[in-house]
């Protein structure tokens, strides 16, 4: 019922949306299994440019039981100081602050900036329960304080405390840093520490990217502790710290004016118990991932593209596969576009789920005007789930106001 009311309210607002500065986009997406409607509303007040609103509401039929459902993903009102000293947001929105994991909340957030280069952000509210559900005594509070160390360097410290039905679900402290020591080099790192069980890293990532003319290089490293990423109220969070690590390098080379080549290789190590839970020993499984990709633009603007990709993932009998993928995008006319995507995945061990998993899609996109757009596709696949399946996809979009 709430979904229906929200949808009707959004549609009523849409009737006004032709007038600047309101913007509305409505998408109707239909697949053979599950039709979905999306309404996106963005509103700005030209007289009061310090105030704006945004909403994304969807409604549809679930693939699983054909029942009607829907939700509001974003309903938010934002006010900001015209001089940029701060801003506040209220409603349903996503908080992504520093090193702690993004959180979807019904609540408020506020950010204040000092001329010294320091910033303080605080947020709090109720964690979103899908489909307008309610969890009594579930709430979270968090903050991030950051400081600009120089023109190209900033560091921040964040904290979040979350309760689920009154019980502690998460408590994390995070650290993030971003450095741009020169025009061609960017370095960023973040780490989040779980404070509930055996304080330790729940997730950390470091990335350094350098670019020079036709080349770009990246080196990265990640550590994740799956049990610490789960809410502390989950029984599986009591299994302790068994981290998964990844380090790798990647490069992009503009080999010709219209040809880009990418490659990346990563080494992975997944910790696991040696024999049984009674043993203290922890062993690891070593693996790798290799990706090679090329993209050839068929015109200077890149409207037409042919791309080819090879993926190889090796770890153990349950997670090793090789994949080939090709994509094409061809403008037929200025308003009509033909696109296709094909993938062939060969698992090292099929375990009775089929030796090859092909997947393919052919789509047509028609830009009828600056306001109307339509796309249709046929998708086919053979997967571990079914030996063959074909779906039809359709999307119609209408925009009001600016694009």
């Amino acid at each position, binding site marked *: 019922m709430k979904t229906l009311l929200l949808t009707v309210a959004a549609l009523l607002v849409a009737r006004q949306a032709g007038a600047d500065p309101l913007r509305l986009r409505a998408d109707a997406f239909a697949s053979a299994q599950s039709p979905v409607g999306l309404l996106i509303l963005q509103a700005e007040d030209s007289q009061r440019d310090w105030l704006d609103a945004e909403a994304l509401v969807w409604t549809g039929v679930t693939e699983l039981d054909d029942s009607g459902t829907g939700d509001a993903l*974003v309903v938010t009102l934002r006010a900001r100081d015209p001089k*940029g000293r701060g801003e506040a947001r209220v409603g349903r929105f996503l908080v992504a602050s520093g090193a702690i994991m993004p959180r979807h909340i019904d609540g408020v957030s506020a950010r204040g900036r000092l001329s010294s280069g320091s910033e303080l952000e605080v947020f709090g509210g109720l964690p979103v329960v899908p489909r307008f559900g309610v969890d009594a005594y579930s709430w979270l509070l968090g903050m991030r304080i950051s400081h600009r160390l120089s023109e190209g360097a900033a560091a921040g410290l964040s904290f979040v405390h979350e309760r689920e039905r009154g019980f502690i679900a998460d408590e994390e402290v995070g650290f993030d840093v971003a450095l741009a020591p020169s025009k061609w080099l960017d370095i960023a790192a973040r780490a989040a520490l779980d404070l509930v069980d055996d304080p330790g890293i729940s997730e950390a990532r470091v990335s350094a990217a350098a670019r020079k003319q036709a080349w770009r290089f990246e080196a990265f490293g990640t550590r994740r502790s799956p049990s610490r990423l789960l809410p502390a109220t989950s029984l*599986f969070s009591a299994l302790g710290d068994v981290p998964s690590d990844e380090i790798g390098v990647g490069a*992009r080379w503009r080999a010709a004016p219209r040809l880009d080549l990418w490659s990346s290789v990563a080494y992975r190590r997944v910790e696991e118990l040696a024999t049984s839970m009674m043993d203290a020993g922890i062993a690891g499984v070593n693996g790798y991932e290799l990706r090679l990709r090329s993209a050839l633009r068929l015109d200077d603007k890149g409207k037409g593209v042919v791309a080819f990709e090879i993926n190889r993932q090796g770890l*153990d009998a349950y997670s090793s*596969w090789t994949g080939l993928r090709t994509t094409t995008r061809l403008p037929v006319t200025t308003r009509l576009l033909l696109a296709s995507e094909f993938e062939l995945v060969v698992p090292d061990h099929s375990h009775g789920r089929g030796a090859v998993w092909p997947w393919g899609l052919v789509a047509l996109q028609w830009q009828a005007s600056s306001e109307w757009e339509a796309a249709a596709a046929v998708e086919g696949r053979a997967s571990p789930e079914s030996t063959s399946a074909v779906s039809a996809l359709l999307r119609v979009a209408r925009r009001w106001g600016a694009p």
Partner: protein
Amino acid sequence: MVRRVLLLVCGGLALAACAHILGFRASAPQPFAHRAHLLQGVSCMKCHRGIERAGDDSSLHLPGTTDCVGCHVKPHDTRECTSCHGLPLTIEGAVQAKEYLRFSHASHAPKVKGNCVRCHPEVAHDGRMLRPTMASCFGCHAHEDQFRVRDCQGCHVDLPAEMTPPQSHLVHDGDFLSEHGVRAAAASDLCATCHSQRFCAGCHGKSVAVLPETLLFDQVTRAGVHRAGFRSRHAEEARAQAGLCTTCHNQSSCQSCHDAKGIAATVDSSRSPHPPGWLGAPGQSNEHGRAAWRNPAECASCHGGAGEMLCVQCHREGAVGGSPHPPGWTSRRSKVELPCLLCHGGAQ
């Protein structure tokens, strides 16, 4: 001999075709020869007539054939000069800048004393994109303060609609999809100057109706985690990168789908996803323990919530399964809190 010549001709043709496809084309439109004109001492204003008086809402002042023939009195071609001299891409960049930037040449020309190269240094190298970078603007203007507080509207009319990828900060190049998390950690407010809430919530929201790569199925070159036949290989991907799925998905994401399709041990079905030897008495083959340690999030995706009682049956205090805690396990939680009370509080 004839065969060799034929091979040579074919090879040459193939090479030429490849070069053409790759963008190496002598006959294709070239960037306008600004440098040659500069070296000849031609003033910018001679071709871009009136640009020095152009305000924010005036025209682009791009030169046409009539401007060229003032000097080049005998054109070598009857077509419009701009059809070969100058790139459509460069002109489109200028058109986009006109539409989305608040800028007045009239107020800038006197300050640089007619030296356009000061802001447009790329003309000295016959560059493809002549729009000044933000760093060029910052060279004179003290916009650093506005940049710090993300007050972009002084120059940018509408950044989300402009969709110009940043060139000098947070460059969206390479595999930016996997990088974006660590890059955004220290600059989420900078990301928000272009990307609205719905952009982030489209993937990270709790109840995403349809993933962006599924909704925009016709944008096949768009980067995405779940592209193409991801559904077929999702189990392999999840196992190889333990914990990755949990950074976006909540623990019950998988359960509804697996339950409905009967691919779960929690339903009365022969299509359990678990291999033989998964569950056994102590001392026997017992793979589930290793798997749970390796990626507890994978177990929680189906056995979370009420499904946890399946584990509690064997692993509760004093039961046959033994303690699932690792050696030296400590926690600040009380045994009457969830989930401790499930095994330690006699709640089973």
